[in-house]
């Protein structure tokens, strides 16, 4: 596969390390009242869609950027690649 890195352009997927569903960005608040249930779902439950999937790739043999890749799990077609940091900020994460 080839991932079109937002900064570096097309790079072979073998330069990257895969983590999983981009929902891993949405780490629950450690002080939420249902915190244990929230962390259980965050840590263990996945949509695992047959179709478009937002997922985290790390450019290990490259510039060390974490990327959010939108990829179809049936065809492997990649429709979008973003810097995970931008996505995290857009989802309201800060410090």
């Amino acid at each position, binding site marked *: *596969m080839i991932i079109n890195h937002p900064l570096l352009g097309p790079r*072979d*997927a*073998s330069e990257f390390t*895969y*983590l*999983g*569903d981009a929902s891993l960005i949405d780490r629950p608040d450690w002080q939420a009242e249902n915190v244990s*249930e929230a962390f*259980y*779902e965050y*840590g*263990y*439950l*996945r*949509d*695992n*869609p*047959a179709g478009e*999937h937002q*997922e985290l790739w790390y450019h290990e043999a490259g510039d060390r950027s974490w990327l959010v890749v939108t*990829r179809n*799990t*049936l*065809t*492997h077609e990649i429709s979008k690649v973003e810097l995970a940091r931008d996505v995290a900020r857009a989802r309201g994460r800060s410090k």
Partner: protein
Amino acid sequence: MRYSGFRVIKEALTGHKGWKPVWREPEPKAHYDIIVIGGGGHGLATAHYLSKVYGQRNVAVVEKGWIGGGNVGRNTTIVRSNYMLDGNEPFYEFSMKLWEGLEQDLNYNAMMSQRGIINLFHTDGQRDAYTRRGNAMILNGADAELLDADQVRKEHPYLNFDDARFPIKGGLVQRRAGTARHDAVAWGFARSADLHGVDIIQNCEVTGLRIENGKCLGVETTKGFIGANKVGCAVAGSSGRVMGMAGMRLPIESHVLQAFVSEGLKPVLPSVITFGAGHFYVSQSDKGGLVFGGDIDGYNTYAQRGNLPVVEDVCEGGVALMPMIGRARLLRMWGGVMDMSMDGSPIIDRTPVEGLYFNGGWCYGGFKATPASGHCFAHLLAKDEPHPVATAYRLDRFRTGRMIDEKGVGNQPNLH
């Protein structure tokens, strides 16, 4: 129709005119006591044990394509019970015992070949881990042997002992392990289930689960609605899709595992071999092909195909371990969609939906588990309580912290 020596000779002499279809092709009834979704190894095994052991005759298996076309027809055929953890080893040893009696149980030759398996180790740390595992196997009534480097060399002189980046220090052996003819396993279970009255309905895709006030009433299919008192889901890589119809999210991701076979070669490998310093395992089929594989590709996918980097990684491990295979040719590569769970161990359990049961999360260990998985799932479906060797395979173990993590890599499915 029962297979016997007499039968085989008679048919041979009369032009094989008497052989009947191995299973019927029935139309679905309106209602069954139990419906098993998925005509793969586990689904068909479940039907066999439901009908033969647990006396359930009003059972159907619904399969979206042709039976045995999924992972049971596209794996590396390895059968073993060399696990370490309490939750796993009793189950897999139970499976091993079922394998050992399978031909007679099914009156069908699945060609189980107990040629043994050796897991090679290359560091003292690996040796200690294998020692712990081997002891756990013996304490659970299985067989295990620890070989040192010289003993390994005696049994496998063609391995790379002299020019190895990671020298072989020994191996953990299970003699009773081996391989089986994977397709025949599916056909054998199907044939037996069919003989015991189970309807095997092919080309019948489940499109929905009919659930009313928390109870599952049956399945919507491409052949219409089929009612059932109980519905069991055994669809491996499609687990997310099917259980999604019940609005459930699972501790499972679907990943592709590639497998490879070489051209047919005169016998060279006496047993199954796994490389402890690279991603490679191999055995030789009864037709002579080297059947081998390695890591999953590592990204979520439902496509039954992988990519080159893993092909190369597997072959690098292969040549590093046994340099003689450099000139053997890779004939075919294919992929199977694995239901990778969050701790690398399976789930056989009820679900929050009454009448809906789940069997999945087999990662790439599903084939060896086929008989026990079917037996235990049948037990659960028939008696509504887990089989004694499968009590740990609960759906809620991640919430309570009772993970069964053989590899110790945690909640990242692609590392298991």
